């Protein structure tokens, strides 16, 4: 316990004893989790394990019934709404790629830029050289520099996923939450995405939720397995996948 207490103060993300139920269904049940600054963590778990609900709690979409959710050791996330949490520096990529389809790739990134998001400032905003350099940088990172003026809706599925990761980067968050980034991707795209996330992890803390074990293995990071709303196992991918209870929940009882 003393080890956990020590971490509490320095953790980038700290969840302790979190409960959420929807109409009597316990989606999250005593979930405790700590992510250190600069860490990349993979979250796995069967369907209904509470992975997406956990993301919803961290980003303010769902309020927990009880438990602590602390960001950067000090900020209580359960008291803030989505916009406030985004401003704090938590970016989220959704399970289904949600980019603004009727706008160009560049405009999508521009919307994501970390700027003053008040109405009056947005009306009078115009791009500074720094900001256009940042957009160029992100476009290069996500390999979409040649698609700058294409409509986001015209991108392939994999490119949309990258664009969404790019939007996260443009937000310049401290913590990235990435929900199923490689769902529906080809093997090559999956590999490139793993490279991309590792590159991002050099500067930022990342939490990845993913089903694809090859991909998780490729990331080569600490893995947490969720089951029925709480942590079932934690460790390296080899340790977790050798864990008997993990095998049991994945293969059925």
């Amino acid at each position: 316990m003393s080890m956990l207490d020590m971490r509490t103060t320095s953790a980038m993300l700290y969840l302790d004893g979190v409960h959420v139920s929807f109409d009597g269904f316990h989606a999250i049940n005593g979930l405790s989790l700590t992510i250190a600054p600069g860490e990349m963590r993979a979250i796995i778990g069967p369907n209904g394990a509470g992975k997406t609900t956990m993301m919803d709690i961290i980003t303010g979409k769902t309020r927990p019934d009880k438990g602590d959710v602390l960001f950067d050791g000090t900020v209580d996330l359960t008291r803030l709404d989505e916009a406030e949490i985004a401003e704090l520096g938590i970016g989220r990529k959704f399970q289904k790629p949600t980019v603004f389809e009727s706008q160009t790739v560049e405009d999508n990134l521009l919307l994501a830029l970390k700027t003053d998001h008040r109405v009056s400032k947005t009306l009078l905003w115009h791009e500074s050289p720094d900001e256009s350099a940042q957009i160029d940088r992100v476009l290069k990172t996500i390999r979409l520099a040649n698609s700058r003026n294409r409509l986001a809706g015209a991108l392939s599925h994999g490119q949309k996923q990258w664009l969404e990761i790019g939007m996260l980067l443009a937000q310049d968050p401290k913590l990235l939450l990435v929900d199923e980034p490689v769902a529906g991707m080809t093997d090559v795209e999956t590999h490139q995405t793993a490279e991309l996330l590792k590159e991002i992890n050099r500067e930022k803390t990342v939490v990845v939720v993913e089903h694809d074990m090859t991909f998780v293995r490729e990331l080569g990071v600490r893995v947490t397995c969720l089951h029925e709303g709480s942590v079932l196992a934690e460790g390296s991918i080899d340790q977790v996948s050798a864990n008997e209870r993990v095998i049991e929940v994945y293969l059925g009882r």
Partner: protein
Amino acid sequence: MPHLLTRSLNRSAAGFLLVVAACGILVPISNLLLPETSPLQVPTYLVALFGKYVCYAILALSIDLIWGYCGILSLGHGAFFALGGYAMGMYLMRQIGTRGVYGNPILPDFMVFLNYSKLPWYWHGFDMFWFAALMVLLVPGLLAFCFGWLAFRSRVTGVYLSIITQAMTYALLLAFFRNDFGFGGNNGLTDFKDILGFNVQAQGTRATLFFLSCLALSLAFLLCRAIVTSKLGKVLIAIRDAESRTRFLGYRVESYKLFVFTLSACMAGVAGALYVPQVGIINPGEFAPANSIEAVIWVAVGGRGTLIGAVLGAVVVNYAKTVFTSGALASYWLFMLGALFVGVTLLLPKGIVGTVSDWWQGRSAGAEANVRDTAEEDGVTGTSLAE
């Protein structure tokens, strides 16, 4: 600020403004200066009719700003139009003075008739034009702000929001029908004499009002263009297409919605204020939910999210209404309107302007693609071409 203006004026926007300016100047000139025998002379009754269309066009613009760009489908925008109209109507009533049937210097005729002993408190100040003009903006703006603040903060969206906007305008309709509400009840406000000292019936006043309506339309259009071409416009479209995604980027969606909704209501109010002196009456019928729905149809027909389409739709549909409701087809007008809405939804989901511009872009994109293919062979990338 200057970058806001230059960015908002592309070729079609400038062309549109030119057309509006030409109408706004040529129609009054032809009406006032050409002899009545000339085939080019626009008769006064047509000036008033066109003036009405221009006011409807401003209303359509205000709806397009919120519906076409931010996805807020208001089915009660006629309420803001009517409130602006009533504010102007109250000024015009106070101008009648002793020329009314009962000759009361303070009380409008309907108040004398209904045995009012003194002017209700909310009628004070409306004898001054500046005060009435302020109310034209303030009353619809304030209602929209309060309504929007409650609705958007509770995250009421989609069809639910549309329904409560209908309820809002219906509630106002019932209230304004009441005699003791103090706005002339069923009959509304009419028998106007003059505006700023000029006779409202006079040919010169009508021509001037038409010119001012065109000016207001141009300014409203410029304002909308400036908004939709700014980053704010991109945020509005983002909210329309993926509201919750926009929230997760750190935008306070309800503030953005509240801003455009309130602005749009003020625009609708101005449209109503210009409408009333030109048609000579404002009554509770203007609050009828059907009116608001009709205005939405104009925007759908013209093409939502295009601004120019909203204006075009308002003029085309209302012209058709004028033509068809005055002949043998009069009793079938509502069926035609319904068929028009169904037809546009099924066949032209992007409206007139949206369909035409898609076709145009498809044509030029085809030509461009050919150019790009050859350019890429020469080692030029698509991006550098597009820039």
